[in-house]
């Protein structure tokens, strides 16, 4: 019984913090923040085309709200809320994609530098060395087979 109380308290605290995070994300959501996250993800090497499409859908919702021309939302508040939700999702997805792209890029760089480059250098060095030896032995053989002719 005594062990259950701290467990339940921690769960409640976790739920509360999760809902607070969600609210603060909505407050912080903005097109500018989403643009910056998308750019960061793109610089890290992620494919951001889907995020860009979502962003433009959200911009269209804001446009509908501003012009009171409601096609895919019902009112000013509804349009803005939907747009903000999209911006939050974009910002979160972009952060995730940035991290994934950075990990993938670092791994690829390490493989290129640690595996492909030494293997390529080794193979080229072996071929080069053997070719040089073969050329040299042919030169010696040619020299040995030379005949002195009297003019």
């Amino acid at each position: 019984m005594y062990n259950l109380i701290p467990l339940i308290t921690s769960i409640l605290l976790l739920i509360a913090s999760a809902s607070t995070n969600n609210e603060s994300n909505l407050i912080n959501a903005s097109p500018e923040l989403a643009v910056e996250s998308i750019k960061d993800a793109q610089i890290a090497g992620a494919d951001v085309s889907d995020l860009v499409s979502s962003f433009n859908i959200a911009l269209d919702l804001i446009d509908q709200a501003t012009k009171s021309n409601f096609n895919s939302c019902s009112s000013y508040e509804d349009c803005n809320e939907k747009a903000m939700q999209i911006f939050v999702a974009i910002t979160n997805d972009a952060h995730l994609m940035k991290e994934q792209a950075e990990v993938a890029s670092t791994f690829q760089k390490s493989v290129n530098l640690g595996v492909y480059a030494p293997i390529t250098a080794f193979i080229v060095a072996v071929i080069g060395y053997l070719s040089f030896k073969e050329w040299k032995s042919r030169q010696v053989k040619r020299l040995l087979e030379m005949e002195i002719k009297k003019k």
Partner: protein
Amino acid sequence: MISALVLSIKGALTSRVFVAIFVSLLAISLSVTYVASESRARQSFLSINTLGSDMTMENYYPGETSTISVGDNVSWHINVYNRMGEPEYLSVKVKLLNSTHQSPDVAMNLPSPELHIFETRQLLMNNSTWTIPLFWKLTEVEKQGNHAVIKSLNINGIDVSDLSIKSAGGHNFRMVIELWRYDRQLGDFSFAWSSDSDKSSVWNQIWFNVS
């Protein structure tokens, strides 16, 4: 044959010449791989052009001349191209000016100080074109002596009123189309942007008369 090759390779591995060749090639290979993995600088730019009703550089006006009357439907297409190397958050601002209003200044990278009558925004992927249809018509033009004064117009279905753009004889009105880009450092849209070592800006204008 194979055993001879294996023997040659074994001999190669113990040779000082081979080690010297391998170390040199490894250094070159690592350098090339590192340089290739770094992003290369390319020429970056944004461009804008305005086309007529049939997406060509013709048919900008409803009639044969550049004179537009109240109620005439004008159809243009603005094309914006992004080659900045990353997605750009762009804004196109349309301004209605007469010949005495100050134009944007490309040398100083300054926009026209006049207020815009229409604005649209889009996040544009690198190496992509954004086409903005621009349908507009004059809804109210007032005659004041020798002058024609544009009082209101409709642009992409939105009424823009409270205008007072005046021109003698109804000549030399113009639509100025400016391209603005979201600047991360500034935290706002900016008319100019840095490309390579220079600052750049782009804009278009189309002249028309009013009857």
